[in-house]
């Protein structure tokens, strides 16, 4: 066996604290080492050429590079081996930068440590075995979960690239949160006006199949070959026949008596409804919780909606369907919920009708809202309005992160009040105004110039909203009390209530704040740890519309890559299960974060799907009988490495 050892100086990053020359000299004498060299930048082209030349001239069969973290350059050096005809897994990397030179100061000792680490790697290298990279074919379709602006954007972009997309939305219409907003900051575009064309595009696109009023309930498979179970809830209206004329809703006995969720229960609808006039698809849905026929089996002499519908679209016998979709990649764009201010009783939300949330305010000023855009509270136009920021954000007791949108939407809402009620008195309680986006600071300055009073308060300072006849009294520390007609709480963005359940179904992770976790906070912000599943919009972290759209475009590109390639390469390092030793206890099954393990109930042993296995080793460490070993990290290799390191330690 011939092993080549290459030590990198990394400029002075390593050479400053490790005597590279001495290291090379020392490791030269290790068993099986045919050559050892150092170079200023091993990862550079001349560095790589040096290794290639040695492999050819000296017929090396294992290569050890002592440099930086394998995260960045392991693929680089594996390619070097591949290009010279060696199996790329005959390569071993030692991290003498992060694990040695950067964390130590005494040159002599860190040189010793570098020698130890390399000795271990050399010992391990001789036991390395060739591994084959695997390729799997990709089904050229994608699934987008969530039909808000991020989901629509992602679906459109994947569809534009020529791939079929299923866009699954839980509610009867796509549009999401953005459809609920009146105007958008800082440009004051009408939210619906810019969103609805996109909704229509998505509905009309030949490559997009809309699955509204549907939910993802199960996921199997792996990148390239996902099998998705989608529950399609019954609308009780034939989508083919319904033209959205609305005669049914006008005829419904419960017309104007059911709170409309889209208007956050401020407006009223019928039992048969579309959530908002621009809904896509414009197909009516019967609320099974409310409809008299569905609840009691009888609605007067005859259901009035059935009578009203000229196209006989209503069908009370519709049943829930489970669709099975085969897709190659998935974009998750499930959006967010809003913080419920009832959790902070000091704001008086839920107690007094004068206290509302930011989103409720959006419906109040929206022309399609319950009041037709007229701001009124208890039937009167408010004269004194107080906005309170950071409700449920930046608060260690509820949610520690900043929700990023509240400062600006509050400024926008204040501006809207000023526009609609010019004489109104407006006070905004803020902690810090975070106007970081394009045009944000300018907008903030503009709003301040409109005579809106910004009052600073510390988040920890007590605040109290109490009843005062038909008004409320806002009491804060260090400021005079305000007798307000209306209090708007800038509630923050929180993860969807069912994020946990979805994360379990999709096998993706959540960060500590409950949002879905990206694979790398800087460099892989749209990826998850599960290959083939990507994130877009507020399901990953609070975002404003442009950020959500940008991320959705990015996620669409990432999701389309494997579809375009037609195949994906999967990690060759995976678990191997010795069926003769496996006791079938299935302890590993739950630990596998990638659903790669499957129980063979006939042979009563666990089996591993090499394509899904990421080689993380959780199963191997948990296996009580030691039946699981990891390719590239088998017992012999690890023990040789430990022996190498400790033997060298004794020598020193």
């Amino acid at each position, binding site marked *: 066996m011939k092993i080549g050892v290459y030590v990198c100086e990394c400029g002075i990053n390593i050479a400053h604290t490790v005597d590279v020359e001495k290291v090379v000299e020392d490791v030269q004498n290790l068993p099986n080492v045919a050559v050892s060299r150092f170079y200023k930048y091993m990862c550079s082209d001349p560095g790589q050429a040096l290794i290639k030349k040695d492999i050819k001239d000296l017929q090396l069969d294992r290569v050890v590079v002592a440099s930086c973290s394998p995260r960045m350059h392991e693929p680089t050096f594996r390619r070097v081996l591949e290009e010279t005809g060696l199996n790329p897994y005959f390569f071993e990397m030692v991290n003498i930068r992060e694990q040695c030179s950067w964390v130590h100061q005494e040159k002599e000792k860190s040189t010793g440590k570098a020698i130890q680490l390399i000795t271990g790697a050399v010992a391990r290298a001789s036991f390395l075995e060739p591994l084959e990279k695997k390729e799997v074919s990709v089904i050229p379709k994608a699934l987008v979960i969530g039909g808000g602006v991020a989901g629509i954007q992602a679906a459109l972009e994947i569809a534009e690239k020529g791939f079929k997309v299923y866009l699954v939305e839980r509610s009867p219409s796509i549009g999401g949160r953005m459809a609920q907003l009146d105007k958008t900051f800082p440009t004051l575009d009408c939210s619906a006006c810019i969103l609805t064309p996109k909704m229509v595009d998505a509905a009309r696109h030949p490559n997009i199949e809309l699955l509204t009023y549907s939910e993802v309930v199960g996921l199997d498979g792996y990148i390239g070959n996902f099998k998705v179970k989608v529950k399609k809830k019954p609308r009780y209206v034939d989508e083919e026949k319904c033209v959205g004329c609305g005669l049914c809703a006008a005829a419904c006995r419960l017309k104007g008596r059911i709170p409309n969720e889209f208007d956050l229960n401020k407006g009223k609808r019928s039992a048969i409804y579309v959530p908002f006039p621009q809904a896509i698809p414009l197909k009516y849905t019967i609320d099974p919780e409310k409809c008299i026929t569905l609840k009691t089996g009888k609605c007067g002499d005859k259901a009035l909606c059935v009578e009203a519908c000229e196209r006989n679209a209503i069908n009370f016998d519709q049943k829930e369907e489970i669709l099975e979709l085969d897709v190659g990649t998935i974009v998750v764009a499930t959006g967010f919920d809003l913080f419920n201010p009832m959790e902070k009783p000091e704001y008086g939300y839920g107690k007094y009708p004068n206290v509302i949330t930011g989103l409720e305010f959006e419906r109040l000023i929206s022309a399609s809202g319950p009041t037709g855009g007229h701001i009124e509270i208890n039937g009167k136009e408010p004269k004194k309005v107080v906005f309170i920021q950071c409700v449920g954000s930046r608060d260690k007791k509820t949610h520690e992160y900043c929700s990023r949108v509240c400062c600006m939407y509050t400024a926008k809402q204040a501006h809207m009040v000023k526009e609609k009620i010019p004489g109104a008195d407006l006070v905004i309680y803020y902690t810090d105004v975070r106007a970081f986006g394009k045009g944000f600071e300018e907008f903030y300055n503009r709003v301040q110039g409109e005579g809106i009073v910004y009052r600073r308060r510390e988040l920890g300072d007590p605040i109290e909203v109490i009843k005062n006849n038909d008004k409320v009294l806002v009491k804060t520390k260090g400021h005079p009390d305000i007798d307000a007609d209306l209090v708007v709480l800038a509630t923050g963005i929180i993860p969807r209530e069912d994020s946990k359940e979805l994360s379990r179904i999709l096998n993706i992770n959540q960060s500590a704040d409950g949002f879905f976790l990206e694979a790398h906070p800087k460099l892989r912000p749209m990826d998850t740890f599960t290959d083939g599943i990507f994130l877009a919009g507020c399901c990953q972290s609070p975002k404003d519309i442009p950020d959500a759209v940008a991320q959705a475009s990015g996620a669409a590109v990432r999701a389309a890559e494997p579809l375009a390639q037609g195949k994906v390469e999967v990690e060759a390092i995976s678990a191997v299960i010795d069926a003769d030793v496996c*006791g079938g206890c299935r302890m590993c099954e739950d630990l596998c974060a990638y659903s790669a393990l499957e129980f063979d109930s006939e042979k009563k042993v666990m089996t591993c799907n090499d394509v899904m296995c990421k080689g993380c080793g959780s199963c191997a460490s948990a296996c009580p*009988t030691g039946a699981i070993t990891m390719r590239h990290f088998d017992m012999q290799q690890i023990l040789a490495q430990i022996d190498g390191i400790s033997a060298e330690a004794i020598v020193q």
Partner: protein
Amino acid sequence: MVNEKQLRDEVKKLVSRDDVKYVIGYEQGTYGFQVTPSFAFTPEEAERFIFSPLCANNLSVYLMLEEKPPLRKGEKEDTRKVGLVVKGCDARAVVQILQEKGLKRESLVIIGVPCTGVIDPKKITVKFPHQIKPVDVREEGNHYVLTINGKNQKIPKDELLFEKCKQCEYPTPVIHDVLLGDEVKSTKKEEYKEIKTLEKKALKEKWEFWSKAFDRCIRCYACRNVCPLCYCKECIVDQLSPQWIYRSVNRSENTVWNLIRAYHLAGRCSGCGECERACPMNIPLTMLNKKIEKDIKELFQYVAGVNLEEKPLLAMFKPNDTEDTIL
């Protein structure tokens, strides 16, 4: 104690069933205070079954010892049930095996014996060292009555009882299909007195204590073979590549073996004490098991083998688990 006629009738009934292969119980041993395991395939064989205070063995080990050769082509798996007589502590081992999916619940018929404690053979042989002929032992209140050469001897229970029985919290089998006789309620509590005393000693003293104990070990692996929960297809001591434990009998290797054995039972040991009973060198093996049991109880509020619905401790990872165990 159990009515033996009722036991035999029950076993006869079971082995007559088509879906029961055999029943494992106890029969009179050939000499002294021995009882031996008995396997009844027919109602006649069930006549041999006994239950006395000498029935210390944990028979659940035989469930895991049955050899199951690979099926021939066209041959169907024998899915008949196996019957088993269990005491309180034995039943916990069965629960643990079931939790670990070592066996299926439907493959077992469990005959539960509410237990009032069993005799430690080591204690009784000290009192009657050269007893060759079989001895009849009965329980009468707080005493055991031994009939030796026609003469009755009355000995207080406490003098002969296993230490584990004195602190037994689960005398009635936690799992059973048939229960012979009335439940025995326990008012005892495991207080780990012996463990607490040892814990307080200095490191050096502890090391001396265990070095002495492990020096005696002859590596016969009786402790492993008798343990119902040591059922790995390939035991760590049998592995050659890598060879974790060398075969030489010396303090270092003996220590490694005995500690690994105890650790491999962490969160699994049901405390039946068979390892110590089987040990020919009188190594206090239950002390190791008990120490781990105590720590686990304190760290995770977990007791092994009492709840069939639970997962095994080491398969129940929770993000808020205490990290005190991580060295």
